[in-house]
């Protein structure tokens, strides 16, 4: 049977997370629907982070913001990462009040909607294991390979953008996975990202002209995209992102 455990420090949480069959719960918005319908053996333990004080904290320093693993998507600290548009495009208001930024990126159970903005912000994920202690890895690496079994994600650090634009297409706004998307951010350490189905790829754009920006996005997209129609859509999205980054005024 599954038991609930409530560690009060990161090191206790890492020890529980390292136990075979344990599942870590932050907001639970991805985990609970899976728990309710899973057909495989149940987890041995659900590791709740609510009693780890640092998990709710966030910090803004030196042009970056660091969010603990219980900071929710609707938190104002997280909003810094999503530009003037905010995260209103993400799920529903009730889900945004519970879903966490870190959980969204590390959970293999959902579409990882926040992956593209965090890639564009050069984000780094912080975690730890019981055996080897804390670690920090680029979010790009986590989105590609997932978080290793037994590892605990403790927070994420992202560069604060001067401006961020995310142009995307999905079957149903807010409720469906982004099928094609381009996210661009201006500011130190920022860049861009392209979304093609389940693939999220970082793009190094530098401070280039519009055609250079679009070319960089196309080049990266072509590593996974063969369909000319979809490539044309990505190109158009990239052009819009560059235009919006450089011509629209902040409101």
């Amino acid at each position, binding site marked *: *049977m*599954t*038991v*609930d455990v409530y560690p009060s420090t990161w090191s206790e949480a890492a020890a529980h997370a390292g136990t075979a069959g344990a599942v870590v*719960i932050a907001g*639970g*918005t991805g*985990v*609970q*629907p899976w*728990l*309710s*319908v899973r057909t495989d053996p*149940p*987890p041995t333990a*659900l590791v*709740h982070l*609510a009693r780890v004080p640092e998990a709710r904290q966030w910090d803004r320093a030196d042009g970056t913001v660091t969010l603990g693993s219980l900071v929710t998507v609707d938190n104002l600290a997280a909003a810094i990462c999503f530009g003037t548009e905010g995260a209103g495009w993400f*799920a*529903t*208001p*009730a*889900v945004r*009040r*519970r879903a966490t930024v870190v959980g969204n990126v590390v959970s293999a159970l959902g579409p990882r909607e926040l992956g593209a903005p965090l890639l564009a912000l050069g984000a780094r994920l912080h975690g730890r294991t019981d055996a080897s202690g804390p670690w920090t890895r680029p979010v790009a690496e986590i989105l590609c390979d997932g978080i290793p079994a037994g590892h605990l994600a403790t927070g994420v650090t992202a560069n604060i953008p001067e401006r961020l634009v995310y142009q995307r297409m999905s079957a149903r706004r*807010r*409720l469906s996975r982004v099928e094609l998307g381009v996210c661009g951010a201006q500011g130190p350490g920022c860049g861009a990202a392209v979304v093609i189905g389940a693939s999220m790829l970082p793009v190094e754009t530098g401070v280039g002209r519009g055609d250079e920006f679009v070319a960089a996005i196309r080049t990266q997209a072509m590593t996974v995209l063969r369909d000319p129609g979809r490539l044309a859509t990505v190109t158009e999205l990239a052009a819009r992102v560059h235009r919006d980054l450089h011509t629209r005024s902040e409101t």
Partner: protein
Amino acid sequence: MKPTIDVDGVEVGLPTEGASSLWDVLDNNGIRIPMGCGTGHCGACTVLLDDTPTPSCLVPKGSVRGARIRTAASSALPALVDAMAREGAVQCGFCSPGVVVTLSWAIRLAVARHRCLDADEVRELLIGHLCRCTGYQAIVTATVSACRNELASGDGGDASATRS
């Protein structure tokens, strides 16, 4: 000591094992709330969890120990229920409990701030609630009307006020 939650003023025990959701706990204790998508998008199972509208299907039972749960049975604002009936904002009724929980909460918050919800704000609140019958407009009209009436009457000023 067995962990508990307070549901509409009644103490309900939480199972100490298993991976059930808050909705499962309520259902197993005879508290009937509609279950729609099971992924938090339809809003049918919404309850107030510590005074915040939350789809109960998304909440692990282990994360609500000691919490205060209010269903539509105790949190519905009578003025909203009356307005929804008057405007024809209820048809099959499946989504209504969740809609009423969220909109009653929003009206109480707005009135506590001495302001009225506008139609756009109500539509934004309804993003988390799927209704296949009404087309939403009647719900929007009823909510704005109820909020205006509450503001005029001076009721609903306590944002956390619910019957229990």
